[in-house]
């Protein structure tokens, strides 16, 4: 029962946002509809279309090359292709803007080399829809890569051989068999990438694009309409639900696309000459542009600005970030354990539904979570202070709204599913028969926990902590809306400095975030060896079904 209450509590943001549709918002709504709504929708759709093309192109082909061929460095590329996951979208956007802007090093040196002046030549404008598509594709393609790679890896070699023996060339076998077989997995990867795209705030805000997330922020802060913001959020949620269903459906489909155990590892073929160069280009470009170039640029900027960065202010941001992240991670772990064990001890529809409700959080854009949290908290604070003023003549003001508490709550809504997934995965390793075996040998429940469960679960628990910790560190839009006044974190500081066009100064906090984010990516790449595990350590929006219970 407490499970259900907990998950309902965590689901309030969704309920609030959806129910807002039924409240009249007066002029704001018609105003939005008249002016910007079509623009938001159009931009968001264009962005999604562009990112789809980008992540598919950047993700599928390297996945195919590293699973089917062997070439010098292919093992390194296999995990290096994941590195861009460590760079939050807004940070890569700031970095490339710094590099490619009119005043940036590239255009400056072009002007110098050819004696051009500004306006003499055409240069792609990075702060555009196309630029945003490029930035988001570069950091979100690993989702497609990871799932496509796992799918290609699981395909039995003899299925490809069967296609060859039926007259297909290598390319034909890829197009007619390997790709269609991997399609469900690729769609799962794509829908995760698109959810991230919809959730992105930092990049589109910086590039001045009007999308749903920037619209929600503007409606809330600029127009001061909570209902309007909530209604926009509801619309955005509509898109998200389409993606979540697509993801869940594809996951189900992929069960039927199982080609059975791999009969033999299809001998990787060696590449030579032109095809080798091509393979390096296809696998190398995403890593180079998605990680190495921006990382080096950040390092360079940080090295020239370190004396202004390493101040007591910086220590303060770091402390705030780490405290928030640690607080959220431990709370998430505790709640995840509670839910996971509850589901295990009392397998019922109630506990399953609870877990499913919690699982939805991951799909929610940070802006939507923020609105969904702000509205009820403000209502609660107002009622409370009314009550206190009436009865005790004491104004509590906004007791919770402007505090760290609301921030952690929002983080939990969004990131608890990640912890829950990881803990669940760990818990399934402990089969009920192990409990029974332990009890039959005379272990008390406490001893069972200490001697069986904890040793087996330790890895999963650490992973859960780490994943939530890093996600909180990176989080921008919800933090921006919910943070207490003058409360700064590394992500906020990066955002503020970039918006003051102090890109080089922003490199310090940005680099700190990237370095922290590298840890889980490296962990992920280590599990890559075992095909299948890699995809399960990915957060997924749709909670895995519990049929096996």
């Amino acid at each position, binding site marked *: 029962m407490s499970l259900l209450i907990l998950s309902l509590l965590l689901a309030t943001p969704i309920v609030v946002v959806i129910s807002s549709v039924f409240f009249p918002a007066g002029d704001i709504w018609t105003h939005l509809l008249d002016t910007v709504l079509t623009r938001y929708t159009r931009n968001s759709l264009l962005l999604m279309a562009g990112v789809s093309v980008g992540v598919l192109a950047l993700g599928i082909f390297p996945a195919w090359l590293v699973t089917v061929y062997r070439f010098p460095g292919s093992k390194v590329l296999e995990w290096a292709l994941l590195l861009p996951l460590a760079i939050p979208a807004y940070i890569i956007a700031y970095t490339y803007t710094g590099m490619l802007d009119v005043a940036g090093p590239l255009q400056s040196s072009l002007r110098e080399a050819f004696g051009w002046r500004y306006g003499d030549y055409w240069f792609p404008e990075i702060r555009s829809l196309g630029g945003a598509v490029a930035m988001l594709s570069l950091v979100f393609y690993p989702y497609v890569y990871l799932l496509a790679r796992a799918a290609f890896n699981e395909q039995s070699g003899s299925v490809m*051989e*069967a296609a060859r*023996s*039926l*007259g297909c*060339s290598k390319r034909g076998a890829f197009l007619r*068999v390997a790709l269609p077989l991997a399609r469900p997995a690729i769609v799962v990867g794509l829908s995760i990438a698109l959810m991230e795209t919809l959730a992105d705030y930092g990049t589109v805000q910086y590039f001045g694009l009007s999308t749903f997330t920037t619209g929600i922020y503007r409606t809330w802060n600029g127009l001061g309409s909570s209902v309007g913001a909530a209604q926009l959020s509801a619309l955005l949620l509509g898109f998200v639900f389409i993606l979540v269903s697509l993801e869940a459906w594809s996951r189900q489909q992929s069960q039927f696309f199982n*080609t*059975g155990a791999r009969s033999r590892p299809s001998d990787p073929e060696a590449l030579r000459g032109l095809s080798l160069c091509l393979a390096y280009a296809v696998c190398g470009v995403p890593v180079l542009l998605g990680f190495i170039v921006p990382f080096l640029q950040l390092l360079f900027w940080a090295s020239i600005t370190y004396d202004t960065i390493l101040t007591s202010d910086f220590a303060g941001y770091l402390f705030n970030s780490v405290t928030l992240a640690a607080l959220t991670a431990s709370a998430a772990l505790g709640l995840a354990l509670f839910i996971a064990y509850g589901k295990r001890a009392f397998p019922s529809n109630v506990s399953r539904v609870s877990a499913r409700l919690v699982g939805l959080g991951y799909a929610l854009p940070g802006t939507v979570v923020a609105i969904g949290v702000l509205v009820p908290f403000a209502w609660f604070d107002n009622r409370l202070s009314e009550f206190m003023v009436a009865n005790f003549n004491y104004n509590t003001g906004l007791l919770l709204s402007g505090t760290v508490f609301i921030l952690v709550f929002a983080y939990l809504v969004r990131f608890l599913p990640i912890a829950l997934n990881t803990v669940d995965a760990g818990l399934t390793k402990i089969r009920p028969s192990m409990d029974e075996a332990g009890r039959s040998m005379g272990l008390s429940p406490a001893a069972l926990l200490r001697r069986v469960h904890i040793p087996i679960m330790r890895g999963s628990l650490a992973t859960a902590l780490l994943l939530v910790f890093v996600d909180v560190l990176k989080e921008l839009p919800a933090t921006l809306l919910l943070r207490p006044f003058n409360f700064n974190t590394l992500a906020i500081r990066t955002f503020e400095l970039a918006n003051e066009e102090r890109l080089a100064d922003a490199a310090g906090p940005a680099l700190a975030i990237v370095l922290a984010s590298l840890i889980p990516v490296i962990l992920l790449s280590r599990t890559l060896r075992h095909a299948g595990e890699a995809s399960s350590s990915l957060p997924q929006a749709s909670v895995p079904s519990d049929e096996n219970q």
Partner: protein
Amino acid sequence: MTSPALQLDNVCVHLGGKLIVDSVSFRVPAGGIGCLLGASGCGKTTLLRAIAGFESVSSGSVSLDGAQVSTPEKTLDIEKRRVGMVFQDHSLFPHLSVRDNIAFGLQSLTAAKRAARVDELARLLAIGDLLDAYPHRLSGGQQQRVAIARAMAPRPEVLLLDEPFSSLDVELREQLAREIRGVLKHEGVTAILVSHNQFEAFAMADEIGVIKGGKLLQWDNAFNLYHTPASLAVADFIGEGVLIDGRAVGEHTVETELGVIDTRQIQDFNLPGTTDISLLLRPDDVFHDDASPTKARVVEKAFRGAVFLYTLELESGKRVLSLAPSHHDHAIGEPMGIRLDVEHLVAFPKLPVV
């Protein structure tokens, strides 16, 4: 004279520097069904994959219909050599319906011809009701039929079947093997089958090659493999039997513990030239005869319906097998009269005692 559909000349295959297939030669005439028989790890599957073109040969050559497709210098691409392959795990395309699976290799045909060919094969293999199903809904036997239909659809020069029945129930195996043989013969397909199960091989193939340690020991029909194995290893692998000691006395007489054999009554019998020889006795060579002076003690017996398979111990302690009609029921430990009734007999020089 037309060239054989499939011909292998001294084919060697190395995998990872190791010699897996050692100088194998054989030929299969058009429409013939051959079987490569051997224990797992003997190199038979590698040989099959070399014929298919998945592995290249390190010496020798593979020819299809008179044209060399594999030599150490050149391995013709799989898709260009017109071989059909049926895989051990069937390897149906899970994203395609049965109909589309069968039609997969028929891209170059018009839609009408493609549909006609699919229907024809569906009828032959009795899978007409399954055409719109997807592979994950099929049983193992049904998947096997679809896999064979798919491989046969483009009318390959040679159909290669890798342990095609190993994933099926034992009861189903021989029946399906016979049925598939009928289909192949009906279509006039040349086929090579790989198997570790001799009964499957007997049921399916015209000629069988016994492979051990990468070498082809004997290429012959089932009858000859059983009754006149060319070597001890073949004798050991095919059928049940025991070796007993014998002494060649004169030109036409062999003395054994079970009596004297007049070799003039046996077809195609050749003495190996030594005095001490080993004789391969099949269970059907040792007859139950209560009147016989030769007695042996029953050690084990297995009821096989119409017959008992007795394991008998001779006075010397040597054991032989005997098939007796099951109404001759002797208890374990009892003595039982036996005599030799040999139509085929193979003798090998006696192996030195190790």
